[in-house]
């Protein structure tokens, strides 16, 4: 079992969601985060004093999948999240050892999705 964590542009979320559904991946979580990379920082002036807005709003997606679903999920995100420009984001994959479904208490591969 793997966890996929992706950092993407907020305006790509809907496209990625659609592609995930099409690939039969229906379980994930999403939240807001703020990222720094080589994207230009914005320098603004507040009441005459400079300030640097160096953290850009991004969306973080987390998907736990069985091993055979990893590629599909990654591809869906790669495809849906791409504009080809710096700032498009990253995907990270890391192992998980156990998974439980709280509603039933069941453990293991079947608990991750349907």
């Amino acid at each position, binding site marked *: 079992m793997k966890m996929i964590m992706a950092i993407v542009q907020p305006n790509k979320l809907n496209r990625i969601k659609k592609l995930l559904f099409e690939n039969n991946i229906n379980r994930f979580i999403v939240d807001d985060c703020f990222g720094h990379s080589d994207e230009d920082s914005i320098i603004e*002036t507040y009441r005459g004093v400079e300030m640097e807005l160096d953290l850009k709003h991004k969306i973080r997606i987390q998907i736990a999948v069985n091993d055979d679903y990893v590629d599909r999920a990654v591809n869906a995100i790669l495809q849906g999240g791409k504009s080809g420009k710096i700032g498009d984001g990253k995907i990270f994959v890391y192992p998980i050892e156990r998974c439980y479904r709280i509603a039933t208490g069941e453990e293991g591969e079947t608990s991750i999705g349907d």
Partner: protein
Amino acid sequence: MNEFEVLQHNLNTVWTCLAAFMVFFMQAGFALVEMGLTRAKNAINIIMKNLMDFSIGSVLFFFIGAGLMFGESNGFFGTNGFFLSGVTGNDWSYTFVLFQTVFAATAATIVSGAMAERTIFTSYLIYSIFITGIIYPISGSWAWGSLANGSGWLEHLSTGAFIDFAGSTVVHSLGGWLALAGAMTIGPRKGKYTPKGKARAIPGHNIPYAALGVFILWLSWFGFNAGSTTLGDGSIGRIAFITNLSAVMGSITAMIYSWVMYKKPDVTMSLNGALAGLVGITAGCANVDWLGALLIGSVSGILVTYSVVFIDTKLKIDDPVGAISVHGVCGAWGTIAVGLFGAEKALGLAEANTGLFYGGGINQLLSQFIGVASFMAWGLLTGFILFKTVKKFVGLRVTPDEEYIGLDIEEHGLEAYQLTK
């Protein structure tokens, strides 16, 4: 009183009461501006300060301040009319005192903004009491005592009476100088300056609040200025018109100036500009013509923007909402401007114009300078004494940890927002 007089008196009461209600609403406006331009973690503290300085101030002004300000004067302050003794049994007096009370509350509230995000609540209450109960009414009596039973020395200058129709100096710039003394005594917020002394931006947490606050203040200001006639007659339309003209010019020039200097039209500066235009015209709203208003407002908008940056980055005095610039600097400018643009004759109000540029010579300008200088001296003097004393005996500033966590939790045990629950 004959029947006409009774009717006019009734009309005056209606008008003055409504103006007082509008000025009362300034408390909401000030609270919103101050909250909007500071951080979320101190919003409740700001609410409490505004609620309490009005509440405590009302009581104090009713009982003590009104006497000091409008009682028969010993030359320096009023000496009778305390504990509402001048009020009871006379309907007009209630109206008059109510109107004056909401003015008095304004002065203390101005200080609140400049010292926001780091002042001990108890200390705030203490110095508020002194400002509304003593400092404000004493100097107020110098310029406005004769509105009731007093007689102030600034009303009898040999160069002619000091003119401050609705309080650019009596209310606003006094508040501004007290704020200056306060902000200097308490020092800047943690993190406001780098170790090397470079100013850092600490953006306000809710600009829509600040904007709503400015619109509420603007609305209230019509009551503040036009209501200061305490007469429901034809002049109020002119005063309101002149007031509005200065306000709009203030916001326009502040926007343009910030655009030119800092590359983008700055919202908080434009909002400050409108307030600066309002503060600036308050002294002369009944005495200048539209050209005067246009110029007073335009200069106010630029002055406030320049002054905010200067005080922040050069003087390194941390004034989160720009109170010193808006009220102190622009209040002084507007008051002096009456000596430049006084157009009483042109307006059909008097035999002659008093403004230097309107053929009135230098005298009025001198009177204005004397007035402005004496309020500035009084504000700074009493301000430093007050704040240093409070600092010594009670402490002025919360601990660094409290400042970091925020006054809302530390002083009032609650957070302002629970948006995700």
